[in-house]
């Protein structure tokens, strides 16, 4: 009897620890989001969206950083997502059982979690040193390198979920392979493919490390892709580490904007993904 009691007590202790660790994990989420809202909302005003980043000591906003981030993210996705989708298509449709697919999948999974600062160094070596200066386009390409593996992975997974009888039915009508893929497989996997792109956007909109030495930063409003370009993460990095109170406040507000955008994107992606699996 006492042995059984001891076992039960041991179990209760460990199970209690499992409950505690869940509370611990959720606690961080609440803590971080709460302090982010607390600090960020204080600085939220129309000026944030209408004015440039200020020199220290004067009022200003984040307009150039927001616009820069939007341009860089858009370009990064525009370059990276089609490439990733095509590669995923090859892996799921044409070369499903080939050696190449196996190797690409392995390498892609590694690129997926490779340190993003290394991507920044890569683009610096390949583009910035060649061009002789930092530029928005280098930043966009760096982001594209991060987008690609995310989209490759989701595209392959989603296309593999499409039932083969659908493809066989289309092929039986004499439809060429490319059209089977375009009109049947893509259409059946559409929600999943969109989810992948949304996740990729969420991933890069907070990326800082690859932008630091590609797009650099810019104090002024600029849409010139051939020149350094401001971005929210880079501005947050610069402003948060500065000793000026109003810069730090802007950094918090920028952090709130990014987090809000990223969380909204990942929740939308999740809802889309859930619809897909529920069907």
């Amino acid at each position: 009897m006492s042995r059984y009691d001891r076992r039960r007590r041991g179990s209760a202790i460990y199970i209690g620890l499992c409950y505690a660790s869940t509370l611990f994990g959720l606690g961080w989420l609440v803590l971080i989001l709460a302090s982010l809202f607390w600090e960020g909302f204080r600085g939220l005003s129309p000026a944030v969206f209408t004015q440039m980043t200020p020199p220290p000591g004067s009022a200003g906003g984040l307009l150039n950083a927001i616009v820069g981030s939007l341009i860089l993210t858009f370009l990064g996705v525009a370059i990276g997502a089609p490439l990733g989708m095509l590669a995923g298509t090859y892996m799921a449709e044409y070369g499903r059982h080939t050696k190449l697919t196996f190797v690409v999948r392995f390498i892609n999974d590694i690129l997926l979690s490779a340190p993003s600062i290394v991507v920044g160094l890569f683009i610096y070596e390949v583009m910035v040193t060649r061009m002789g200066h930092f530029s928005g386009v280098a930043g966009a390409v760096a982001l594209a390198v991060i987008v690609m593996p995310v989209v490759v992975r989701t595209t392959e997974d989603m296309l593999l979920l499409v039932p083969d009888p659908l493809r066989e039915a289309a092929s039986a009508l004499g439809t060429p392979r490319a059209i089977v893929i375009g009109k049947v497989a893509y259409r059946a996997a559409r929600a999943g493919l969109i989810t992948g792109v949304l996740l990729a956007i969420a991933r890069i909109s907070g990326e800082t490390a690859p932008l630091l030495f590609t797009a650099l930063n810019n104090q002024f409003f600029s849409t010139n892709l051939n020149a350094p370009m401001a971005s929210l993460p880079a501005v947050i990095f610069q402003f948060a580490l500065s000793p000026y109170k109003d810069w730090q406040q802007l950094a918090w507000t920028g952090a709130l904007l990014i987090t809000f955008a990223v969380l909204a994107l990942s929740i939308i992606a999740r809802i889309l993904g859930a619809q897909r699996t529920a069907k």
Partner: protein
Amino acid sequence: MSDLAIDSGVSESVALRRRAKVLRGLQLRDAGFRLLTLAAALAVLLVLGGVIASLVIGSLPAFRAFGFGFLASDTWNPVTEKFGALAPVYGTLITAAIAMVIAVPIGLGIAIFLTELCPYVMRRPIGIAIELLAGIPSIIYGIWGLFVFAPFLQKHVQPGIISLFADVPILSTLFAGPPYGIGMLTAGIILAIMVLPFVTSISRDVFETVPPVLKEAAYGVGCTTWEVVRFVVIPYTRVGVIGGIMLGLGRALGETMAVTFVIGNAHRISASLFAPGTTISASIANEFTEAVGDLYTSALIALGLILFVITFIILAIARYMLMRLQMQEGA
């Protein structure tokens, strides 16, 4: 393709020719699309090749100047252009180790909670909440760590720990020195929070692959919940769990922004976990744009190469383990 079907009005040879033309067009389009997708798949390999090649070429001057001494020296002096990688490598390994020591037991605990204990309705919301931790950009962890977490540690936690362990032989060196707030321990804890969702979600996924029959059999002979987890679930999923932990470790080693904010950026090796230090990624992020001279830049790129090689090996092992598990499942 409707023109293929409606050809009764046209003479036979014309119809045949047109049919052949359309078919050839389709064939070309098919081959073209196939080539396009193949090229994109090869581009993935090209990116990896490009990353390795550019890092190796970029780091050549540094390795030529310092040889293997680069890995063994802890001097980092931009003025005299003497560089060594030991301090950043040390900081990277120590912070990642702290992160894993915290994140692995807690991540496994959450995964056990989610698969064995949690009521069904709550599983999805709690799982998503934990995964949101992974969605928060690392710069947010950085700014939070710098302005909220580090001051809290400095005021309320570190002085207590320092005085508590002041007379204990080994612990007094580990937790020595003035409470800066920022430092290696702070960076390690922040990394732990960031790695937690990776460990959790992969362990949860592999825990769910345990056949219910095995668990039911264990419960049937009178095992407690913990005994089922300890002697059935974890042994069955060992390879997958280790794969998940390695994946988290890969993340912790390469994480940049969050660490850069709270590590203190001091190129030195100190025994105390409260002391400021630096990691590979933090050094690169901080110094790269300010680096003057080819040798300085090259030394930083060499650091990047070291980081990439370490994370590549760890991620490759992790993926290999997870892949083997998947194949077992398929077989």
